[in-house]
């Protein structure tokens, strides 16, 4: 065995930095900052950017040694969302231009969605994240990849005061006035904080995806393609998200409750791809991705003393289509604004952070996703035959209204065409109505009348 000169103890990974601020390059050395961000996906990076912009000392850590990979994501983002979050599309990561979406019933019948809300990009996450990280670092944040959170630091009263981390096998402490848990579906910050972040298999999708090259005969390369049906994907859908010339993310999400041997997400996707040789005969795989997709609309509480959760960690995902990049970034912007105000008042208690929850759930995406959760439960009752009939009567505009949680048009249409579904609609309506009591009274009254008429016809 070759002998190496010197002493292993001389390695510098756990020695303080000289002439440089902490976090300039990763070191396993105790640090103290204003804001610690755990997890550097889109949510964490936008939070880091926005806290740094306010002049706070920000340190972000991620357990992976490369940000953005491996992705757990189909990589779709909307123009609207990017603009809201102050991110300029860049050809370096904006790969596939999207100008609509097609939803397919099991027979192949399709509904096409087009319009201002349906445009966007399929991005290359590993480059996208690098650009978000650039914005965060240039705003003043420091980032440490390959650094894993191993425990929370709490004060005597139980308030979170940072974390115990590990870099290259050496443990150290990062003390922080505020900790942002942006650590994904497997959020340990959430669990350690005592926030109820558990995903129930009833509200959790198992996702599996291949990134493929050589995909052919996709009906339209500027659309996202979503394939429904209980054989294709139980209570979920299969997708093709075009990502440039003959490249696409081809994936599936199924309700975790429906997963079983031989009927796992991967089994379903493999079978679906096999049944479409026209598209995949000349294709092959460049990436294998998987994920849990939280479709509960949110965790019960995303804040505790000294800690805020954003993104998948707070289950902030659209319950209908499962997209979460923009939602995570939007929530992170609110978290940074509310958290910043709290820090300036030197009060990071749960009460001081509560405006984050109020603002997200009443004014931002949260208000919509909560209602979409009801729609998700409703669609889970649909048989393949129902999907077929829906595909016949729905047009793209109605589906678009649905994705914005504007339901009355949809319900009216349903009742006119399917009086048989009245009992189901009644059940669904009760649920939605509880949440919408003050709103849209007139619309619902009309639905009531139609529903009564349909039920009378049945009886």
């Amino acid at each position, binding site marked *: 065995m070759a002998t190496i000169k010197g002493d292993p103890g001389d390695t510098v990974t756990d020695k303080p930095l000289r002439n440089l601020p902490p976090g300039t390059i990763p070191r396993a050395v105790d640090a103290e900052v204003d804001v610690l961000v755990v997890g550097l996906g889109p949510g964490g990076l936008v939070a880091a950017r926005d806290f740094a912009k306010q002049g706070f000392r920000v340190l972000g850590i991620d*357990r*992976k040694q490369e940000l953005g990979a*491996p992705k*757990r994501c189909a990589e779709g983002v909307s123009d609207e969302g990017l603009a809201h979050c102050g991110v300029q599309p860049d050809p370096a990561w904006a790969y596939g231009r999207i100008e609509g979406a097609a939803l397919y019933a099991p027979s192949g019948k399709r509904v096409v969605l087009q319009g201002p809300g349906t445009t966007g990009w399929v991005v290359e996450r590993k480059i996208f994240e690098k650009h978000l990280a650039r914005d965060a670092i240039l705003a003043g944040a420091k980032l440490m990849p*390959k650094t*894993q959170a191993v425990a929370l630091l709490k004060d005597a009263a139980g308030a979170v005061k940072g974390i115990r981390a590990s870099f290259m096998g050496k443990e150290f402490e990062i003390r922080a006035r505020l900790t942002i848990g942006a650590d*994904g*579906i*497997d*959020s*340990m910050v959430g*669990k350690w904080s005592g926030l109820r*972040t*558990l*995903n*129930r*298999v*009833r509200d*959790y999708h*198992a*996702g*599996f995806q291949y990134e493929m090259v050589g995909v052919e005969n996709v009906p339209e390369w500027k659309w996202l393609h979503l394939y429904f049906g209980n054989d294709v994907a139980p209570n979920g859908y299969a997708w093709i998200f075009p990502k440039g010339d003959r490249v696409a993310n081809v994936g599936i999400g199924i309700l*975790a*409750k429906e*997963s*079983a*041997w031989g009927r*796992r*997400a*991967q089994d379903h996707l493999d079978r679906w791809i096999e049944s479409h040789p026209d598209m995949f005969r000349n294709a092959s795989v460049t990436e*294998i*991705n*998987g*994920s*849990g997709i*939280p479709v509960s609309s949110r965790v019960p509480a995303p804040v505790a003393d000294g800690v805020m959760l954003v993104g998948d960690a707070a289950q902030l995902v659209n319950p209908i289509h499962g997209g979460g990049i923009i939602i995570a970034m939007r929530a992170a912007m609110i978290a940074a604004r509310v958290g910043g105000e709290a820090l300036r008042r030197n009060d990071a208690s749960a009460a001081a952070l509560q405006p984050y929850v109020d603002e997200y759930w009443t004014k931002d995406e949260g208000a919509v996703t909560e209602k979409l959760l009801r729609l998700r439960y409703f669609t889970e009752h649909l048989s393949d035959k129902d999907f077929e009939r829906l595909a016949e009567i729905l047009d793209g505009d109605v589906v678009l209204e649905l994705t914005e949680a504007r339901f009355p048009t949809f319900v009216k249409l349903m009742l006119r065409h399917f009086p048989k579904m009245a009992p189901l609609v009644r059940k669904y309506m009760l649920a939605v109505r509880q949440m919408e009591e003050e709103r849209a009274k007139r619309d619902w009254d009309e639905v009531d009348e139609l529903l009564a008429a349909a039920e009378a016809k049945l009886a």
Partner: protein
Amino acid sequence: MAKVDVDHGRCISCAGCVGVCPVDTIQLQGEHLVIDQGPCINCGLCIQFCPVGALEQGADYGADPERRPLRVITV
């Protein structure tokens, strides 16, 4: 005796199982899935969730009739 076995060759490190574990026994360390068998209640939710089938009930564990999987949380 392992309650849940991980087939590391099959695991794609997606960490979805971590999100369904009701007693926080699973963690992803780097890209490596680690299960703390001690607190595991053998509920089987992680096994059910796994998109690729990389988790299985421990071979010797399920055989003992006294230790049938305890399905405490299904909904």
